[in-house]
C-alpha cells in the first residue's frame, strides 16, 4: 500500500525537501508521517500550538534537532513547565545530569522562538485559542480544555507533534479537526453531588478510566462548572484515560443539548456516576494512611484564585517544619499573586510558591522516599515520591499546619 492520500502544497514539498532548513524538514517529516497514518488529504493552517515540553531526554533530542537545524516557530507556541532550576538548586541537591537535560531543554525552546510560558494551563493567559481556531495543543488538561471549553480544534498531540506543527504553522487535517469526529460516543448520567473542584478531579478520574478512549457527554450536571473545576476534569480524564474532548451540554460550547452533542446519533453506551463511584475513586487513590511528609499543590498549575484560597487558609498560621507545603503555578499567576499579597501570606506561613515547575521532574528527588499529600490524583499518579495521599485543599493545608486533616 503506497501512501498517496496526502497532497502537499508547493511550499510544504519544499520544506519536506529541506529547502527551508534541516529543522523545518524534520518537523515536516513528522507531520507527513502522521498525515499518512491517518489518511489525511491535506495540511491545514493552525493559529497556535502548545508543546508539552518535559525536560526528558526524548524531548531534548527533538527540540535540539529542530533548533540546531535553524527552525523557528511560525505561530505562537507555548511551553509546559520543566522546573525553576535556580529555586530548587538553592534548596536541594538535584542530580547533575538530569539538571543539565532540563537546562538544555529550556535553552533549546528559547532558540526555536517558543513562548517561554513553562505553564501547563497556557490557555488561561499566555496562549489563548479562540472558538473555531485550528490549533495543535498537547498536554493532558490543555487538549480537552481547548476542544471542549473553548471550542478550538486540536488533536491529542504529543509534545513533538505539537512543536512540529508550531514550527510549520500547519497540521494534517484528521481526527478532531473534522466536525463529524467531535460528536459524543458515550453518555454519562451524573447524579453525584459535585460540591467543589476536588469532586471534579474524582469525576474526571472515573470518566477517563471507564471510557478509556472516546468523547463522553456528561448530562445531569446541575450547577455551571467553574474554570478550575473544568481544568481538573480535563487533567484527570485525560490522564486516567485518553479523553481529548467531552461535552457538558448546556455548559460547554459545542452542544446545548445531549442530542446536539451526539450530532443525532444514538449513544452506544450509557454510564451512571453517583457519589458511590466517586467515593470508590477516592479510596482507590490513597496508597497509605500515614502522616504526610510534604504537601504538593498545583497539578495542573494553580490559578490566581486557587493561590488566593491557599493564602486565605494559611493567613496568620505556621506550617510545620517537617511538612513543607508547595504551590506550583505559572509565572503570570505568580506575578499577580505577588501583587495581591498572596505570595507573602503563604511564604510568611512557611510555604513555597514556585513557577515554571512540574510535579514530575527530578527537582523533587529529595522526596523520593516520602509520603506526599496532594489534591491532584494526576500528581499522585506521576508521583516522584513513595506514598500518596489525595485530599481536598483544605485537608492538605490542615495536614501541613497541624499534622491532622481536620
Amino acid at each position: 500500500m503506497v501512501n498517496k492520500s496526502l497532497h502537499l502544497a508547493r511550499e510544504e514539498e519544499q520544506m519536506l525537501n529541506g529547502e527551508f532548513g534541516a529543522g523545518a524538514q524534520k518537523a515536516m517529516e513528522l507531520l507527513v508521517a502522521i498525515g499518512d497514518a491517518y489518511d489525511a488529504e491535506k495540511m491545514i493552517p493552525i493559529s497556535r500550538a502548545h508543546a508539552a515540553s518535559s525536560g526528558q531526554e526524548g524531548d531534548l533530542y527533538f527540540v535540539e534537532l529542530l533548533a540546531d537545524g535553524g527552525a523557528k516557530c511560525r505561530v505562537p507556541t507555548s511551553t509546559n513547565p520543566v522546573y525553576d532550576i535556580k529555586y530548587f538548586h538553592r534548596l536541594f541537591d538535584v542530580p547533575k545530569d538530569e539538571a543539565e537535560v532540563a537546562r538544555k531543554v529550556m535553552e533549546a525552546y528559547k532558540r526555536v522562538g517558543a513562548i517561554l510560558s513553562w505553564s501547563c494551563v497556557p490557555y488561561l493567559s499566555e496562549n489563548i485559542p479562540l472558538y473555531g481556531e485550528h490549533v495543535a495543543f498537547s498536554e493532558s488538561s490543555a487538549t480537552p480544555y481547548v476542544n471542549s471549553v473553548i471550542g478550538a480544534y486540536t488533536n491529542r498531540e504529543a509534545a513533538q507533534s505539537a512543536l512540529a506543527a508550531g514550527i510549520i504553522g500547519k497540521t494534517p487535517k484528521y481526527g478532531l479537526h473534522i466536525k463529524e469526529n467531535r460528536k459524543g460516543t458515550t453518555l454519562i448520567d451524573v447524579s453525584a453531588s459535585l460540591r467543589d473542584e476536588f469532586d471534579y478531579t474524582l469525576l474526571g478520574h472515573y470518566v477517563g478510566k471507564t471510557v478509556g478512549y472516546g468523547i463522553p457527554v456528561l448530562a445531569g450536571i446541575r450547577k455551571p462548572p467553574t474554570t478550575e473545576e473544568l481544568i481538573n476534569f480535563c487533567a484527570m480524564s485525560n490522564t486516567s484515560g485518553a479523553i481529548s474532548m467531552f461535552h457538558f451540554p448546556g455548559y460547554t460550547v459545542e452542544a446545548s443539548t445531549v442530542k446536539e452533542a451526539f450530532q443525532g446519533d444514538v449513544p452506544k453506551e450509557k454510564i451512571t456516576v453517583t457519589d458511590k463511584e466517586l467515593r470508590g475513586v477516592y479510596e482507590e487513590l490513597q496508597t497509605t494512611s500515614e502522616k504526610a511528609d510534604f504537601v504538593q499543590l498545583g497539578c495542573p498549575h494553580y490559578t490566581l484564585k486557587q493561590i488566593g484560597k491557599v493564602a486565605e487558609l494559611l493567613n496568620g498560621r505556621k506550617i510545620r517544619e517537617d511538612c513543607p507545603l508547595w504551590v506550583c503555578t505559572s509565572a503570570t499567576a505568580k506575578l499577580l499573586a505577588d501583587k495581591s499579597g498572596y505570595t507573602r501570606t503563604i511564604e510568611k506561613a512557611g510555604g513555597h510558591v514556585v513557577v515554571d515547575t512540574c510535579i514530575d521532574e527530578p527537582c523533587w528527588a529529595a522526596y523520593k522516599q516520602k509520603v506526599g499529600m496532594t489534591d491532584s490524583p494526576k500528581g499522585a499518579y506521576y508521583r516522584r515520591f513513595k506514598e500518596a495521599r489525595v485530599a481536598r485543599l483544605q485537608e492538605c493545608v490542615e495536614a501541613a499546619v497541624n499534622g491532622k486533616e481536620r
Partner: protein
Amino acid sequence: MKTILKCHRIIGGYGEGEALISHEPICFYLTDPKTGIVREKTHELAGQNISNKVLVFPSGKASSVVQIDGLFKLASHNLAPKAMIVKDVETVLIVSAFMAKVPLVDRLEKDPFKVIGTGDMVRVDADNGAVTVERHGLQHSHAKASHYTAQSF
C-alpha cells in the same frame, strides 16, 4: 513457508528479526531501558525481551511523555524493536517510532495475529509496504500445518 503481505507504511525503513506477539497494548516506559525486558507485572509479555524483535501488538498506551521517552531510551541503548506491526495507530505511537527511528506499519492485508506467530522470522520493508513472514514459531496456531504443507514461494 514464506508469505509476503502488503501493509501500510507509517514510519519508513527496513527491519528484520524474530517476531514477538503481544495481544495487549504496550507502554515502552514499562520496559527496562537497559535490557528491553517488559517489567509491567500484569502484562502478557512480562519478563520477556522486546529488543531487536519485530513486535506485533494492537496499539500503544499511556501518556505521550512516558511512551515517547520509553521507546527513545530503548533506542539510545540499541535495544528498540527492529520494527513494529500494529492494528491501531495513534499520534503518540507514531511520534515514538519516528523519534526512535523504528519502522512502523499497519493495515496488513491479513490479520497479523493470525498470520504471524512468536518466533517467526519477519522482514518489514516499510518503504515498499511489504511484510515477509517465514514461519518458525511454535506458538503459532497454524505453524504445525504449515510444516506439512511446506509450500514455499
